[in-house]
């Protein structure tokens, strides 16, 4: 593991909402150019972590820096170097895909031909060029997700946060997203921080995997060593062992 060039450093990062401790003292180092996957059960605190690291939420305790910028005191710098794919698509229903991407580009101070060339390229990579002028209200949820992925990459951020990037897209689009991430990581040294529930997705493309449970990071490491350390055969099995959610058959049918 390269240690010298870290793009994300978290030190005792914590966030509570009232009595709920969503994230509880997170320590994390993510080297530049790596693809990091954050796994964990529903409500573990993945989305909250991503929101804090991208400068959207203030941590209750602890500190973190992204690309050398402090997430508390330099949030605008952090926002400038990061891209965030939110968990659920919040689009402008009355704009077309092109217009929406123009809007997001403009928010990041991009405009003119440079912006339009990028929009064209991203839309055609994601296979949306035929529908680019249709209003987003008529898009399927997977198509919206693709538009949002494009919007995340538009300003060429050096750290990209993807919160469940493949939760709505079809298998071939999911493959496309994988390839896109791999290609970008190779060509541009972009760091990817991906929250996902798909263990296979994480295993295929990520160099480091972290498992978050009840707001605490319980495991970190390369996929193979995580699997090995848990004494499992696959990442899915390792995940289940670590998170420890065993399924009780009798309880499953007790409601009948």
């Amino acid at each position, binding site marked *: 593991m390269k240690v010298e060039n870290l793009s994300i450093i978290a030190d005792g990062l914590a966030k509570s909402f009232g009595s709920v401790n969503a994230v509880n003292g997170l320590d994390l180092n993510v080297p530049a150019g790596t693809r990091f996957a954050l796994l964990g059960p529903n409500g573990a605190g993945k989305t909250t972590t991503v929101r804090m690291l991208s400068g959207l939420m203030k941590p209750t305790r602890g500190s973190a820096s992204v690309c050398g910028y402090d997430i508390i005191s330099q949030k605008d710098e952090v926002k*400038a170097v990061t891209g965030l794919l939110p968990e659920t698509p*919040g689009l402008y229903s009355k704009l077309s895909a092109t217009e929406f991407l123009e809007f997001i580009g403009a928010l990041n101070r991009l405009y003119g031909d440079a912006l339009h060339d990028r929009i064209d390229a991203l839309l055609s990579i994601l296979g949306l060029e035929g529908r680019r002028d*249709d*209003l987003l209200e008529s898009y399927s949820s997977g198509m919206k997700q693709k538009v949002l992925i494009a919007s995340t990459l538009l300003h060429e951020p050096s750290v990209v946060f993807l919160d469940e990037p493949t939760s709505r897209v079809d298998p071939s689009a999911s493959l496309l997203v994988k390839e896109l991430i791999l290609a970008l990581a190779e060509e541009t040294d972009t760091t990817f921080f991906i929250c996902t529930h798909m263990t296979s997705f994480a295993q295929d493309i990520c160099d480091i995997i972290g498992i978050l449970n009840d707001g605490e990071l319980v495991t970190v490491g390369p996929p193979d060593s995580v699997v090995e350390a848990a004494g499992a055969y696959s990442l899915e099995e390792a995940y289940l062992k670590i998170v420890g959610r065993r399924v009780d058959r009798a309880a499953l049918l007790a409601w009948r």
Partner: protein
Amino acid sequence: MTGNWFHIAKAEFQVQTSGFKAYRMPIAIGFSVLGIIWALIIAPYVMALVLTETLGIPQSVLVMVMPGLMRAGIMFIWVILLILPLSNALKEVKIGQWEILLSNNVRTSEILVGSFAGKLSVYGLYVLYLAPLLVAPFAEALEVSPAGQALMYITIFVVTVGTIWLSQLIVTAIQSKLAASPRGKDLANALAIALSFVAILPLVGLQLFAPLMSEILGMNVFLIFPFTWGADLVTQMAVVFNGTGLAVGSLDATLGFHWSINVLLLGCFSVALVVLGLLSADRLFTIRVSTGTKSTRTSHNENLALRGVRRVAAGSFGVLVVTGLKDFGRKAQNLSRLTLLMLLALTVPIFIYIRAGEFDLTSVNIMISLMLGFLGVQVFGGSGFLESKDQLWTIQAAPQGVRRYMQAKTAQSILLIVPVALLPAGLYTVLLGLEPGQIFFLVSNSFVSCVGGALVGMGIAANNPTYEDTKSGAYTTNNLRAMGLVAVSFMWHFIADMVLSMLGFSAVMNYIWESQTLSILAQIIPLPIVGLVVVSIGCHRLSNRE
């Protein structure tokens, strides 16, 4: 699947009474009991006192105005019952909800019956409180026998139930058509706004032209409207069962139809409505999520104005403004709101003229400015400010995103307000025959007030975003707050006047009131200042992190 309608009715009742969740049943029962006491004892007593003791209206006059008043009253009930539920229901076209109902194998007719029954209880209460106001005075004056009074109430009850049913039928029909299309929600919202405006019209009309109105309603043209049959029937019941010796035939000339014909018409109409509703619900208005107008809209080339904005503001800020303008213009509800409030801004000074008989630049100026202030709040602030929480995340994820977004929104509103402010100013320039200096004065005041209102609306929305949810309590609070701020800003000078004279500076105020220009400025200027303050607070709050 029997009894589906009952579950829908229950859910509808719970929605209608969600305001007082915990004590739903006790409060509902309490209100009903109170309503009955009110209808039978309090209302007749109070009305008798007011009419004969306080106002001293002689019985003969009362009998003369009764048919017209009754028609006006019943029309009022009819409009309220028909349009308010319609407008409310249209605000909640939710495809997801239909999907759930349909996946549980619910038929359209069950939805119709269920929502009807659920509404009946709540809107029935309204009528229980309103109807005695209408019936009691005449029942008192004509000494109508208890049987006669009962018949009067039954007639009103039939009209009420019929109206609620009709309204529910229309709601179901519209929803079944709109829910299917991707623009359904937007169109439904636009329609709802238009309808709630229609509901206010008779109120305004009653206010301004009360005598004229009952005269107009007395005309025979109105015999084609079902509410007239009901109203006339109520009048006739009162006369038939009167205890003062009034001849039964004495009102026949004014009323048009004999009472038996009215009974027949009202009865047939009600039965026909029910049959029609039940038959058509499953055939014509089958709610199917997949069908309907699945046309997708496409964005076209930009028009001259948008290209102009791009040319003037060439950078990324111009792009933000242009996309904002496109988004605004494509939402039917924005255009619907704009049209209605524009109509108000154009006509309110004329209404005032009709009432007061005076027409001068000062009053017209204040009226237009106030109306445009309200227009600013309703059209450019509030709903449509942000569509969803996720959209907010997206905007916040950009460096200084919120501030730039708010700035772009402001610029966009100012651009739209230029033509908006010119329209009423133009109309009254022609009507009042103004000179260039006065025109400039009127135009600039209109513009400043509208921008002020827009800033207030946006600022309040940014303080506590409610997104697209126009039914929530927070939305109503925001709306009231913003409208209140606009109104207070216009009346601020009263308070200043009082405070200054209390402090012994009444000379300052007198100096201001001496000059027409200064006094108008004193009324207009606070709003934009308040707007700027509110919008900066809102912007700050919105960009603050949780």
